[in-house]
């Protein structure tokens, strides 16, 4: 080997038990001491490739070389022993333990060979924090930390296990622009101290700013590896997508009608009495999209679950066209014309083992013409599914295929086909394009705009700032369970401004926020 690769993956093929080919003959070669970007659309196979490298998933074909030597990585423990560390997209921390306890977990310093030496653990944590200039309080409980800090704990955990190669799976997805900038400074420092970093992202500006070289994946295959120095964002994007597209949604200015969804003084406390929602008031009019921006975990999920009936609410009032939803069942609320795309597709959105047809009819199976005298009408259901599969470009063998055999994007189209096809009055759309490929993203986003144009009041909740800015007519920003800002014209908002509201650095006056209710 002429070049000094610390790590090579050659011809990796990974097929999931549902038959989905996530990686096909993928190659990746990483030089020692570089920050190597692994880019590709959602669903291109980046996370899978890294799971194979970290030993979380096995692979069918191919080999992994470390310092030029073939190695067998059977599980994360062997990966860690070889000096590979991974920071997962969803943190793997124990919330009730302290930072130091989390960091040493499984490799605790011992006292007399038996007891855990907690002082040493805290000292070690301090030392490693100082060495890499990552500022975290070792004695704080992880559950009390903000997301950016939790991520630092994850990185420290890997460094404590002496990781030389550090994998970061979409680390910026949960961060505000300000936190992202801080992370980049830290990563560059780690690189200078001799660490190799694999940085997974689909945000090209970040990749361009931070990384030395890039490997592009598309549809589970390697498209190529290149030096970032001579490469423009457009060129990378073309490699990623295979064509020149930048997600630009064509939409006409909204023509808002009457208020449909009205939320007044909504309050919710968690089981331990912590406020989750505080005096949230806003309204959504027919034919408009109200975007909800905010770092995840600031009450957005609970808000959408309350509106759709999944969570009960104590104080406040929610009405649909003037009718209160208080005390109504989920089915009754759905019958009022509320549809709901859940942020958690696999938990709520679909029954993965059930067929496409069974997933599509879950909100109307008991109604004519799909059900007569208690019997499901196979013919009517078949023709409905045929129509929706065509209309929503769902790629599947036929409507009897189990949903788990579909790609993420096609699963989400099944959900959208169900939720958008009954002329909803209100649609609560939560993270509609999370984890799906660019084609499906474009499609779902256009469908949301179509829905608006047909007069539906759309409440769009998304952690993807681009999506919020692209689709919303007006938007609110949530921080700490409160509305931090109401921005009536989303066309005039910058990402920086949004970031400041999201972080709680800025907060509008109560008068400005009150204008989120149109007919107060």
């Amino acid at each position, binding site marked *: 080997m002429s070049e000094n690769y610390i790590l090579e993956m050659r011809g990796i*093929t990974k*097929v999931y*038990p*549902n*038959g*989905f*080919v996530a990686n*096909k003959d993928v190659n990746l070669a990483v030089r020692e001491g570089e920050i190597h970007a692994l880019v590709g659309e959602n669903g291109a196979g980046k996370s899978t490739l890294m799971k194979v490298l970290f030993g979380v998933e096995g692979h*069918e074909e191919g080999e992994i070389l470390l310092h030029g030597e073939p190695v067998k990585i059977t599980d994360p423990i062997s990966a860690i022993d070889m000096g590979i560390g991974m920071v997962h997209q969803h943190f793997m921390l124990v919330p009730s333990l302290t930072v130091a306890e989390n960091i040493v977990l499984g490799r605790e310093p011992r006292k007399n060979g038996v007891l855990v030496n907690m002082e040493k653990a805290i000292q070690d944590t301090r030392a490693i924090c100082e060495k890499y200039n990552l500022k975290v309080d070792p004695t704080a409980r992880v559950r009390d930390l903000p997301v950016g800090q939790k991520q630092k704990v994850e990185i420290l955990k890997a460094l404590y296990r002496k990781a030389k190669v550090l994998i970061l799976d979409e680390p910026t997805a949960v961060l505000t622009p300000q936190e992202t900038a801080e992370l980049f400074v830290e990563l560059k420092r780690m690189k200078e101290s001799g660490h190799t970093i694999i940085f997974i992202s689909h945000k090209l500006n970040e990749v361009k700013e931070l990384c030395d070289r890039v490997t592009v994946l598309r*549809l589970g295959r390697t498209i190529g590896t290149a030096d970032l120095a001579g490469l423009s964002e457009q060129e990378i994007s073309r490699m990623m997508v295979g064509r020149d597209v930048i997600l630009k949604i064509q939409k006409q200015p909204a023509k808002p009608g009457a208020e449909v969804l009205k939320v007044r003084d909504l309050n919710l406390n968690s089981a331990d009495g912590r406020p989750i929602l505080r005096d949230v008031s806003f309204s959504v009019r027919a034919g408009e999209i109200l975007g909800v921006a905010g770092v995840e975990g600031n009450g957005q999920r609970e808000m959408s679950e309350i509106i*759709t009936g*999944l969570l009960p609410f104590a104080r406040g009032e929610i009405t649909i066209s003037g009718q209160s939803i208080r005390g109504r*069942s*989920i*089915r009754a*609320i*759905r019958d009022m014309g509320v549809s*709901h795309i*859940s942020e958690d597709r696999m*938990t*709520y*959105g*679909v*029954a*993965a*083992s*059930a067929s496409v047809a*069974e997933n599509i*009819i*879950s*909100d109307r*199976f*008991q109604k004519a013409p799909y*059900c007569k005298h*208690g*019997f*499901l009408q*196979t013919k009517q259901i078949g023709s409905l599914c045929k129509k929706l599969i065509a209309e929503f470009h769902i790629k599947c*063998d036929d409507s*009897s*295929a*189990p949903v788990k*055999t579909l790609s993420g994007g096609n699963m989400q189209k099944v959900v959208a086909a169900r939720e958008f096809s009954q002329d909803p009055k209100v649609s609560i759309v939560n993270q509609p394009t999370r984890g799906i490929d660019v084609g499906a993203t474009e499609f779902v986003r256009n469908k949301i705009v179509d829905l608006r144009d047909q007069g539906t009041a759309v409440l769009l909740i998304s952690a993807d700032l681009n999506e919020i800015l692209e689709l919303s007519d007006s938007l609110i920003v949530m921080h700490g369970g409160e509305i931090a800002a109401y921005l009536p014209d989303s066309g005039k908002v910058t990402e920086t401004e949004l970031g400041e509201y999201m972080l709680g650095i800025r907060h509008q006056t109560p008068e400005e926020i009150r204008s989120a209710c149109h007919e107060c």
Partner: protein
Amino acid sequence: MSVKQIEKVMDAAKTAAAVLLSFAATILLICLVSSTPWQTVKDFFLGPFQTTRRIGNVIEMAIPICFTGCGICIMYSTGHINMGSSGYFYIGGLAASIVAYGLLLPSGLHPVVCILAGGLVAALIAAIPAVLFSAWGINEVVSSLMLNYIWVYLGTWILRTFMLDSAAGFNASKAFQETAKLSRIISGTRVHSGLILAVVVVLFSWLFLKKTKWGYQIRMMGMNSKFSVYSGMGVTGILLSSQMLGGFLAGIGGACEVLGMYTRFEWAAAPTTGFDGIMVAAIAYRNPALVPVAALFLAYVRVGADVISRTSDVPSEIVSIIQALIIMLVGAQMFLSGIRHKQIVKASVRQLAKEGK
């Protein structure tokens, strides 16, 4: 082949492999312990077919298992495990017996009333674990299993306190009215008209589970109950009604068993039929249409074991080994999973090539 087809074929292959492996183990065991291995093996496999009486034995043994098996298919399709069918079967038989000796009814009507009584009482008690779960989150596996003891001892107390016929000479109820008994339908055997009801129950269960809106809700709840809630289904109601229906089927099974096979109620303990139903439903992958096949198979190996215990030096307990092996292998997620995964990988890669990607 699509992934879906591969999964179906592999399920069938897994069951077939489980059956063959357990048979191989049986033959090996017989060879080890028997002084006449060849004759014993032959008796075991062919014995159940050799006389009308034995064929009848297979069918009459399979009838009650069809009832409990279908009940289990419906109950388990919600994703909740109810271990109580043994108690429901017992109580169904008990309740039917009370009506069978205590009431005077015309012959066409009498068994119908007995069976309905058995089914309804069993349905009521089958609701208890579901109610306990919904109200207080009590684990149904444990509660339903423990309640079996309560039903059997309660039944024994009822039998000894209210039903006992001192003239019978053992712990048995008064004799059933002639009008209540189910008639023999195949001469030379004890196969009774409960067979017809069993066929109806299998058909009903299959239609109910696969074709009606209630069955649809039960299956969706079993696959992902959060999805059901999110879609607007009332999961508590679905759970309760499915458990009651499952209990009802087990109960009418118990009723048919006492009316077709006995002249008095004399069960001192719950028959194994309830747990046989669990076994059969597992082999049938919870599909009611396959329940009779699995039930007949189970009855076949039991009758075979019975035959060799009488004709050779091998005890009938050998059947427990076959049962255990089959259930373990069918239930084992990883059994043959390597082959399954390879097939799926091949099919998927081929599919990719076909799409030209």
